[in-house]
């Protein structure tokens, strides 16, 4: 079990990043803060034994959705996407580098990683979905394929 303080800290970080994303006037700050919020939520899922869920969440929202959102912002021209405050960008970059360095150190230096769940939980979840929820999986694949086909069709629509 994780200490309550860690949960409180992560929840506070999630709420602060979401508030900064929703109430900021600049669209670039919004996109950056939403990216950080997706990362924090993925970390929360991962810490509470939801490795697969956390990984999928980070891949989908911090990866794919951030890129699509950035593309939409660029295509609509709603913001000049100027970072503006260079010191803020420098602080964010430094924090990111520190987090990556610390996590790499704890992963590769042989330090105890007590929060690392066993790989059994991931396989257990996959086998549970495959065994007990196959129809949901099929519906999910149909929804995802339909969304992707619609997306491609919408973007490839010719001018009348």
């Amino acid at each position, binding site marked *: *079990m*994780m200490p*309550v303080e860690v*949960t*409180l800290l992560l*929840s506070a970080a*999630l*709420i602060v990043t*979401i*508030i900064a*994303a*929703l*109430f900021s006037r600049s*669209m670039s700050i*919004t996109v950056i803060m*939403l990216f950080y*919020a*997706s990362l924090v*939520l993925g970390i*929360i*899922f991962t810490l*509470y*034994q*939801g490795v*697969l*869920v956390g990984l*999928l*969440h980070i891949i*989908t*929202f911090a990866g*794919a*959705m951030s890129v*699509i*959102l950035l*593309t*939409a*912002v660029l*295509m*609509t021209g*709603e913001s000049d996407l100027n970072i503006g405050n260079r010191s803020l960008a420098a602080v964010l970059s430094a924090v990111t580098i520190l987090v990556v360095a610390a996590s790499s150190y704890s992963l590769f230096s042989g330090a105890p990683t007590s929060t690392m769940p066993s790989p059994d939980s991931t396989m*257990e*979840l996959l086998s*549970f*979905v495959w065994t007990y*929820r196959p129809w*949901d999986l099929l519906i*999910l694949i149909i*929804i*995802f394929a*339909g*969304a*992707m086909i*619609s*997306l491609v069709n*919408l*973007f490839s*629509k010719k001018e009348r």
Partner: protein
Amino acid sequence: MSMLTDQTILTTTATVLIFLGLVVMFYSRNLLKTIISFQVIVFGANLALFSSGLGGASNLMANTLVLFSIIVGGSVEAIGLALIVLIHKEYGTLDPWKIRRLKH
């Protein structure tokens, strides 16, 4: 402090996220902000589903529902963003009130 459990904290956070998203969705004058607030609501729903499975012996069902919610939320958001790009091409603005006026 003894009343504070992980499940309570995560459920409260999920509620805050859902209401923040709803408020911004209702008062936003930009369709991009609307989609972003929809994403925040999806975050809150995922967190609520996930925290509902924390107390029990097995949280496989909660994890499965979160898994499906992530895919459906991502698909809906992608289509919404594509529609926003088309709307901007057609009307030249992302303000829903102006779009409604231009439609007639």
